[in-house]
C-alpha cells in the first residue's frame, strides 16, 4: 500500500515513515504544502496523511485547490492535525469526497494504523 505523508515537521514525518515502513507500507514524504499537493494531484497514493497547519500553504489550501481542479475525490485523505478544529468544521471536512477521517495529534500510532487500514 502506497502512503504519502505531508507534514512540515520533519520529526513527525520521519517517525511516521519509520513506523509505517516497518508495518509494511511504502511511504513517500513531503515537508512542503505545494509539493505535497502536486504529488496528491497525481493520484498515485492509496492513502494520504495530511497535516493542516503548514507555513505558506496549509492542508486547507491543498484541499481547496484540489477541490477546484476536481482532484480531491481521487484521494483518500486522513487529516492529521494539532490545530483546534471545532466539531462543525470536522463534520464539514468529512463531508468532502476524498477525506476519509480526521485524527488529532498526538494520536496513538495504533489508532493511525487502524485509520489507514479501514
Amino acid at each position, binding site marked *: 500500500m502506497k502512503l504519502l505523508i505531508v507534514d512540515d*515537521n520533519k*520529526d*513527525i514525518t*520521519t*517517525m*511516521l515513515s*519509520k*513506523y509505517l515502513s*516497518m508495518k509494511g507500507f511504502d511511504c513517500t514524504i513531503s515537508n512542503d504544502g505545494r509539493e505535497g499537493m502536486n504529488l496528491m494531484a497525481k493520484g498515485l497514493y492509496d492513502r494520504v496523511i495530511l497535516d493542516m*497547519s503548514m507555513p505558506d500553504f496549509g492542508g486547507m489550501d491543498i484541499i481547496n485547490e484540489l477541490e477546484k481542479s476536481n482532484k480531491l475525490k481521487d484521494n483518500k485523505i486522513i487529516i492529521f492535525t*494539532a*490545530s*483546534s478544529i*471545532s*466539531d*462543525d468544521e470536522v463534520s464539514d471536512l468529512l463531508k468532502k469526497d476524498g477525506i476519509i477521517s480526521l485524527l*488529532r*495529534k*498526538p*494520536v*496513538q*500510532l*495504533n489508532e493511525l494504523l487502524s485509520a489507514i487500514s479501514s
Partner: protein
Amino acid sequence: MDLTIDKNNFKIENYSKKSIEELKKDQKSLESEIDNLFDSLNELIKNSKRSLLSKDTQQDKEFLIKISDKLENKINDFFVATYEQEVIDELGQNRLDVESSLRENTGVKNLSEYFSHFRYTSKGNQLFDTISKEEIEKRLQESNDLKKALDVSSIIAITDKIGTVVYVNKLFEEVSEYGQVELVGQHLSLIKSEFHPAEFFTYLWKVISNGFVWKGDIKNKKKNGNFYWLKTTIVPLLGKDDQPEQYFVISTDITKQKELEIKLSEALAEIRKTDELKNEFASMITHELKTPLTPIRGYCEILKDETFGELNKDQKDFVNTIEQNATRLERLIGDVLDVQKLDMGKMTYNKKNLDVNEFLKNVEKDISPLLKEKEIQFSLPGDVKINIVTDKFRLHEIFENLIRNSIDFVSLRGKISVDVQNNKNMLVFSVHDNGVGIPKEKQSNIFKKFFQGDTSQTRKHGGTGLGLVVCKGLIEGLGGKIWFDSQEGSGTTFYFSIPK
C-alpha cells in the same frame, strides 16, 4: 325652573371661510336672533309670572345666571369657534354693542371678561370654558418664570419655520462662541459640524416639520472650529393651522460625556482585541505544544512495540515514564483549552441519542489501563436500560476526569464504583472512591482552578488541577449540576445530574 332654548331660533354655522361683509351680515342676524330669543324668554317668564327685569329675589338671580350661562355657551360657540382674530378686530364697535346689549338685557356680568379672554387665544372657547382672566395672568406669570429658569439652565435657540435663527440665549452664545448679532438672521446650520450624514438632518426636519418633537445628540462646530456635543430637544411651535411656525431648540452641553463615551468605546474595542489575541494565542499555543508531543509519543510507542529491537526492563521503564509524562502534558493542554473555551462561552455541545449502558462500558474500556496499573476494583451499575440525549464526547470527558481524579486519590487496590439513578427529568450519576477524601476546610475550593486538596499532592498525583473545573463547566453546559460528599480518610463521592 327649566329653560329650553329652541335651536331654530339660534342657528350657528361655520363662518371661518366667510368674508367680513358676510360675517357682519351674520352678526346682524345673530343680534336679531338674540333679540328674538330674549323676547321669547321674556314671554316665557311673563307666562310664569316673573319679570326678567326685576332682579330682587334670590330666585330671579339664580334664574338669570342660568340663562346667562346657557347664552354664553352659545355665543361662545358662535364667536370663538368661527371668527378669526382679525375678523373680531374688524367687527370692533359692533362687538361691544352686542356685549352691552346682552349685559343690559340679561345682567351677565362676566361678558366683558369673556371678550378679553377672547383676545388671549385663538382657541378661546376652550379657555373661556374653564379659565378666568386671573387664571390666565397667573399662568402667564408661571410661563415667564419657566422661561427664565430655562434660560439660565439650557442652551436655547428659536428659529423660524425654515431654520433661520430669531433668538438665542446667553448660554447659546457662550457654547457656540458666536454673538447674538452674528446668529440672528442666519440659518442654524451655521453651527453644523459635518459630522452627521445628510440623512440625519433630513430625518430631523421630517420629524419637526410634521409637528413632532425631535430629541437627539448633535455634534456642532464653534466659531473657532472646535467641536461640541449638544443633547437637543426641538419643539415645533404650531400656528393656527397646526403647522409649525417656529422651532424651539433646547440643548444641554454633553461634550464631556461624549468624550468619555468615545474613550470608553475605544477601551472596549481594545479589550475585545486583547480577547481575540488571547484566543489566537491559545489556539496557537495548543498547536505548538501538541506538535512536539507527536514524535515523543510516537517514538515511545515504536520503542515499546519492539519492532526495532527488544528493550530490557530498565529501558522499558524509561520509555514508560517518558510516555506517561507526555500523556500528562497532553491532558494539561486539553484541560487548559477546555477551561479557556468554557470561560469564553465558546464550548460547543453536539447532543445525540446515547445508550447509557453501552456508554459506561466504553468508559471502563478506555480507562482500564489506568485501573490495572493500580489494581483498582472497579464496578459499574448493573444493566441500565436508559437512553438519553446528550453530548457523548463531553460526557466521556466528565467521566474520565472524575475517575482519573479518584484513581489519583485511592491507594493501591482501592475501590471505585460508578452508579446511576433515574430521577424525573435527570439522570444522576455518581463516582465513588474509598480514597483519602477531601479535608473539610478545602471542600469549598475544589472547583477552583489549579486547586488540589493538598498542594503537595499535585506532584504526587499528577493531576492538572483543572479536571474538576472542566467537569463543572461541562456538566453545567449540558444542563446539569455537580456536587460531592466526602469524608476525610474514608472516601469521596461525586454526583452529577444530566438532563435526559
